[in-house]
Every structure is written in structure tokens, then in C-alpha cells.
């Protein structure tokens, strides 16, 4: 089993395991949002799990969710540089997130709120303008609602739906215009979804939420 040093603490990990999961198992917290344990091809989209790795005397910035552990690896989970990059990443995520905690179904269990407090940041970006897009809410499904204005494009719903062989959701368009949606924007109720609700369970924000949770999405 490879042994490595994270922030001066020596731990062991499974061969091929990604840094993030090895660290979390050993009680070392690395912020993360889009990571899924066991993902064959980690998405690495949120950029919150950036860590510095020392290999052969050189320091490199890598995403902990996608970088496999190596014997004698030295990892730093918090440096000035990392802090700066994480702050920018979090501000970018929040800059097009519709902040409406008062009416949000996930206000009691929101990954963004937890991240903000661990990063010692506010939800509202301080250095970036807020650019929330005017996207329509899909209210068609009997059990859950999809509000793309709250989506942070972590892709968890896309990958979980793909994993069970359905793939009703995917990333569409590009750059700032990117949105997670269905084929040709068809309503969720029209796709033959069997309501396994896995997408709702993995959604870290109030983008996908159960109707019974009482949250609202303004149209």
C-alpha cells in the first residue's frame, strides 16, 4: 500500500486511489463539490479540490479528485496559492447561481453553504459580477422540479443518470451558455423517467429538489 504525506501527516492509501478520497478517509478535509467516489473518469470541473503535490522536488497544482496517489508523494492541501485559486473557483461557481436561500428547498442541506463556511467566504461573490441567466424551470415531473438557475454544472446528475443507463440529462451548449438539460429541452415528464430520484439525491444545490420538500422555484 502506498504511503504518502499530506500536510505533514503520514497516511496510507490503496494503490491507484485518488488523493481526495485517501485524504478524506484519513480525516483530512479537502473542499470538493463535483467529485464522485469511484468515478472512472473524474470530472474535475469545480476546481475546489486543487492541492499542491511535490514530485521529484517540483511542486505541481493538481485536482485531488483526479490525481492518483503515489508512493512517497508529498501533498499540501492549503497554501496561499491554493487558497487564492479556490476562492476564484468558488466565486465563479456562485456568480451564476441564483441565490434565494429563503425559498430554497435545500437551504438546510446545501453543499454551497457548507463550502462557503469552510472557505470562509460569503455566498454572494465579492469580486465578480453576479450573472444569473434567465432559464425556464421544469416543473413537469410529478415528484421533482428542476431549476437550472440554481445548477452549478457539477454534472453529478448527468453521471448518475448515465450510470443507470438512462442518460436523460446531459451538458448542452458551451462556455457560459452551458446548461444541463434534456434532449431538445423536452419536459422531464415526457422521457420515460422511472423516478429513481438518484439525480435529486446527488444534486448538491437546490437545482433538483423534491416537490414535497416545499421549496419553490420562481418561473
Amino acid at each position, binding site marked *: 500500500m502506498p504511503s504518502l504525506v499530506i500536510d505533514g501527516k503520514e497516511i496510507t492509501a490503496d494503490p491507484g486511489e485518488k488523493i481526495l478520497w485517501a485524504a478524506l478517509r484519513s480525516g483530512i478535509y479537502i473542499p470538493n463539490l463535483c467529485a464522485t467516489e469511484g468515478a472512472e473518469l473524474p470530472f474535475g470541473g469545480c476546481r475546489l479540490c486543487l492541492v499542491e503535490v511535490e514530485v521529484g522536488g517540483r511542486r505541481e497544482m493538481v485536482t485531488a479528485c483526479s490525481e492518483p496517489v503515489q508512493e512517497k508523494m508529498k501533498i499540501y492541501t492549503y497554501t496561499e496559492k491554493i487558497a487564492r485559486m479556490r476562492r476564484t473557483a468558488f466565486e465563479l461557481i456562485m456568480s451564476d447561481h441564483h441565490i434565494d436561500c429563503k425559498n430554497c428547498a435545500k437551504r438546510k442541506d446545501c453543499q454551497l453553504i457548507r463550502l462557503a463556511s469552510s472557505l470562509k467566504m460569503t455566498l454572494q461573490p465579492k469580486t465578480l459580477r453576479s450573472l444569473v441567466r434567465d432559464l425556464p424551470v421544469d416543473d413537469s415531473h410529478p415528484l421533482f422540479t428542476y431549476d437550472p438557475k440554481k445548477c452549478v454544472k457539477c454534472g453529478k446528475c448527468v453521471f448518475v443518470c448515465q450510470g443507470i443507463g438512462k*442518460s436523460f*440529462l446531459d451538458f*448542452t451548449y458551451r462556455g457560459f451558455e452551458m446548461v444541463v438539460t434534456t434532449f431538445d429541452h423536452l419536459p422531464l415528464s415526457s422521457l420515460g423517467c422511472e423516478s429513481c430520484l438518484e439525480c435529486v439525491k446527488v444534486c448538491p444545490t437546490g437545482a433538483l429538489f423534491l416537490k414535497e420538500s416545499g421549496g419553490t422555484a420562481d418561473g
Partner: protein
Amino acid sequence: MEESKQIEEILGRFHPERENLLPVLQEIQEKVGYLSREVMESVAHFFHLPPSEIFSVVTFYNQFRRKPPGRNPIHVCLGTACYLLGGNLILDAFSRELQIKKGDTTEDGNFGLESTACFGCCNVAPVVKINSQIYPKMTPGTVEEVIINLRDKDKKG
């Protein structure tokens, strides 16, 4: 040839392997002019891929269109030089004047609106290309004029 026959013919020449997806979409668009919902569905069926994935690919690339092109496709240049000289304002002016968004076609099928990335005539920026004719040094004010002239020509022609 009927549209569905054309598509069948194109699909018949390819193996349903992932790497053939882009060439197939490109050929269909070339023949038919655009990729409708039905076309995307048959392509998904052919490749045994979820329709959402085809939609993802089609929306990712600017070259694919999902609506029939207008008889007068308007290409507004947003290349660096045109962009700096207000290409976006020209696009906005066309969008306002025709009441369509980028990528759409007017209801009468007369005009389509697209943005592109440089025709190589940056010296007369900002430019617009309509039916292979370049309109140089556009301003939001000349947009209306261009549209009126094209409408007139359409009526006469």
C-alpha cells in the same frame, strides 16, 4: 430525394461507431440544411447513443443548426477586429429588427441570423455577410437599411 431517404442513405455508408458521429451529422446538415429533432433521434438510434448525447454534441458546435436556414442567412462577424468595433451591437440590432435570436430564422423563412468568426476583411470592420456579399463598416443605423433592401429584392425577385 425525400429527406428520410437521404438520411438513410448517409447512415448506410457509416458504421455505428462513436468516431463517425461528427461526420454523419456534418453530412446530414450539408444535404438537408439543418438537424431537426427527428433527425437527431434517428442518429441516436443508429449509433445506440442516448438522444441527450446527440443533442449535447449538436449544441456544443456552432457549425450545427437545429432550424432551417433562412433564405437570406445573415452572418454577423464577431472576430476580434469586428468585436472591438461593436460587432455585438450589430448583432443586437439585427436581432431587434428581425425579432429573432442568434441561430434562429424568421417565421416567414426570409432571414436567418448567425454569428461567425472572421471573413478576413478586418480592414472594413465591423462586417456582415449575407448571401456571399460583404457589408462593410456596419453601424446599428445601417442594419434597418440592409434589411429593407433585402426585403424589396425578395418581393421583386
